[in-house]
């Protein structure tokens, strides 16, 4: 009896909700709003990375709306959808949100798996994709996937920056001869991404590359690091994800391996890689594609217009973390693209999908502009061409001092002469398989 009552109540609740959904989405059709769906993962196994990003992304949008009243008066309407880093939920979110409130024009899927599932869908819908670091590295070659943008860098480019730094520390590329470099990686395709680049360097400069797979999720890594210790490597490149990173750093450090010679990849560069490792992570380095910390003018603006008005997303404790900064700059690129789209068509009107895509295809944010945005040194300058969907691909090395990330180098240019032909070859193979005709860039 009790259960049938409960069931009835549940049913009625459900039908009421469905009715309401219709009502709400109908009344919200307002002009002068640019809709921005945000696929986030605030839960699930990788939540510690996802929360900061989502907060930064949302806070930047709030700042633009609060301080400037939107882009030339066009307010941005942000809607989050939780994917939990699962592909099917990501697809569901995309399908649910894409046609709401005047339609999505750009989407950032935040996961390589979701990116792959969305590539055919966004191409059919004409929606732009911004994949920051993750996703298809070969999308950096523009002619094949003309709606996908790898701004501001890829795994491959950032790995060349790491090698450049190592060579500089060793006093020149010629000194790499006979050295031992370990690449400890998430035993999946993600971890193997930089292997092509690393092998190329190993052959060219004569160092020994030791490839050391770590099985996901990587909660137990004694064996791996016992082996690494025996190699006595000069440098270690770490490409873990989620809990694998802190465990690697902690285990390595407790075995007496010098973590200041460990350099994490762009997804081993976040705060959740070092904080759980505690004291052991002091000195650990990583490559990233934006400035670390909160010492930028934009944070004052955020404080004035967002934090102090109690409009911060999430619990507000992610400020200044790597993930948060990534959220800021990703939103920054998206907003700037819209601004340029409006300049190309008509100011003060929400951009359509075509206009947004067109703006992305010639997105140009010089260093001076990043300073105007209050993100000088935080946001790397970007210049997109028809051929190159990555831009300069700059990255920098940072170091964890036990409390915060410190910038070790300035933004550096990657070895594009090496990676760009790799993008091209890979993208063309993909185009052939999918029957895509690369567009002409002349």
């Amino acid at each position, binding site marked *: 009896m009790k259960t049938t009552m409960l069931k009835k109540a549940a049913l009625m609740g459900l039908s009421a909700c469905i009715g309401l959904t219709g009502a709400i989405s109908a009344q919200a059709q307002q002009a002068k709003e640019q809709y921005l769906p945000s696929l*986030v993962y605030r839960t699930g196994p990788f939540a510690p990375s996802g929360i900061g990003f989502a907060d930064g992304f949302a806070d930047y949008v709030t700042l633009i709306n609060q301080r400037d009243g939107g882009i030339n008066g066009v307010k941005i309407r942000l809607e989050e959808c939780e994917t939990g880093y699962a592909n099917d939920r990501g697809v569901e979110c995309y399908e649910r949100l894409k046609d709401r409130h005047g339609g999505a024009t750009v989407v950032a899927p935040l996961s390589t798996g979701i990116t792959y599932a969305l590539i055919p869908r966004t191409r059919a819908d004409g929606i732009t994709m911004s994949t920051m670091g993750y996703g298809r590295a070969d999308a950096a070659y523009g002619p094949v996937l003309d709606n996908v943008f790898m701004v501001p860098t890829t795994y491959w480019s950032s790995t060349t920056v790491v090698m450049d730094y190592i060579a500089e520390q060793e006093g020149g590329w010629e000194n790499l001869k006979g050295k031992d470099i370990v690449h400890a990686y998430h035993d999946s395709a993600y971890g193997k991404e930089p292997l092509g680049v690393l092998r190329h360097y190993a052959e060219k400069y004569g160092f020994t590359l030791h490839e050391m797979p770590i099985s996901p999720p990587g909660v137990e890594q004694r064996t791996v690091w016992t082996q690494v210790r025996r190699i006595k490597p000069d440098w270690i490149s770490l490409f873990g994800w989620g809990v694998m990173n802190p465990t690697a750093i902690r285990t390595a450090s407790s075995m007496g391996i010098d973590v200041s010679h460990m350099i994490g990849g762009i997804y081993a560069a976040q705060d959740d890689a070092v904080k759980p490792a505690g004291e052991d992570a002091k000195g650990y380095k990583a490559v990233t594609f934006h400035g670390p910390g909160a010492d930028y003018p934009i944070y004052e603006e955020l404080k004035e217009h967002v934090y102090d008005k109690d409009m911060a997303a999430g619990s507000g404790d992610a400020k200044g973390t790597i993930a948060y900064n990534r959220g800021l700059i990703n939103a920054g690129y998206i907003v700037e693209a819209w601004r340029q789209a409006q300049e190309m068509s008509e100011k003060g009107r929400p951009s359509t999908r075509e206009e947004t895509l067109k703006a992305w295809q010639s997105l140009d944010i010089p260093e001076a502009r990043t300073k105007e945005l209050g993100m000088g040194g935080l946001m790397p300058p970007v210049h997109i061409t028809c051929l190159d969907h990555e831009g300069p691909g700059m990255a920098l090395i940072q170091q964890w001092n036990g409390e915060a990330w410190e910038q070790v180098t300035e933004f550096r240019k990657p070895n594009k002469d090496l990676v760009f032909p790799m993008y091209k070859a890979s993208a063309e193979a993909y185009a052939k398989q999918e029957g895509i005709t690369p567009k002409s860039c002349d």
Partner: protein
Amino acid sequence: MIYRESGQFKKTYQADQAILPLRQDRIFLILVLLVAFLVVPFTASNYVMNSLLLPFLIYSLAAIGLNILVGYCGQISLGTGGFMAVGAFAAWNLAIRTELPMPVIFVLAGLITSGAGVLFGLPALRIKGFYLAVTTLAAQFFLVWLLQRPWFNNYSASGVISAPDFHMFGWSIETVTDRYYLSLIILVVMALLAKNLVRSATGRKWMAIRDMDVAAEIIGIRPMPTKLKAFAVSSFFIGIAGVLWAFLYLGQLEADAFNIYTSFDVLFMVIIGGLGSILGCFLGAAFVVLVPIFLNIIPSALGLPLSTAMISYIEVFIFGSLIIFFLIVEPHGMARLWSIAKQKLRLWPFPY
């Protein structure tokens, strides 16, 4: 009143052995099929077809596969995700490496999954109950690991690969409607197959093994071929479901994504739907696919000022609680609730 069997006489053995002996059931099924084939594709929105119906159809197929093993043959398996991955990757590799026509590839992928199923079913001859359940996790972890080896994704840099576009019998599968129809046709055919299989001698042997394998052995059922057949058939269904998942729903393949939680989800469908019931598979799949999404949509639809994260936490909490709730209310699953409802309809609206 509505659901009466009086007056429906069976004059032949054939009529007596029909899948649906009652006229009302037949009419109901025909109506459902008519709606599914003729009404839904023209009325449902893209979102509903793409994100609710497609996964529902595909998961139903996987659930039927698992139900054959767990519900009919009594062998608990937690390797469903791994087997789905095998099906998907087998089909992808066949598609890019050979020139075979797509229907052949589908069947071959199913057969390859059957092979994997039989291989990991071998220990079931010795190991039983929860020991077996945990052992099948070996299949889950090993297969996913194996499929991450570069050969299987043709040395793709990111390990995630795109499923190719394809056509069957001159029908090129492009739009959502195409994909919906193809999944629906495959599902209907295979569900019919499964329904008949479990009514056959093989199915009855499975049930004998499930109820007590020692006793079944004594009355002359050989456990080895019977159990292995269940593993093979079950894996075939699950393999096809994996192919559909990758080719028709997501359009991408990633070994990692067929993880242990996929296995749990399918097991939920089978148990919440009803062990040993084909109808239950559909109900269970609907529950597991739709409830989390509804739980996620409801708060924002109601305009509750909850953060995305809080909604998800609550979603997880309520989903877990609902599972417990359902198991307490009706441990035999939603299929049982359905038959209780039918019983009630015999008399309704009269008290007796």
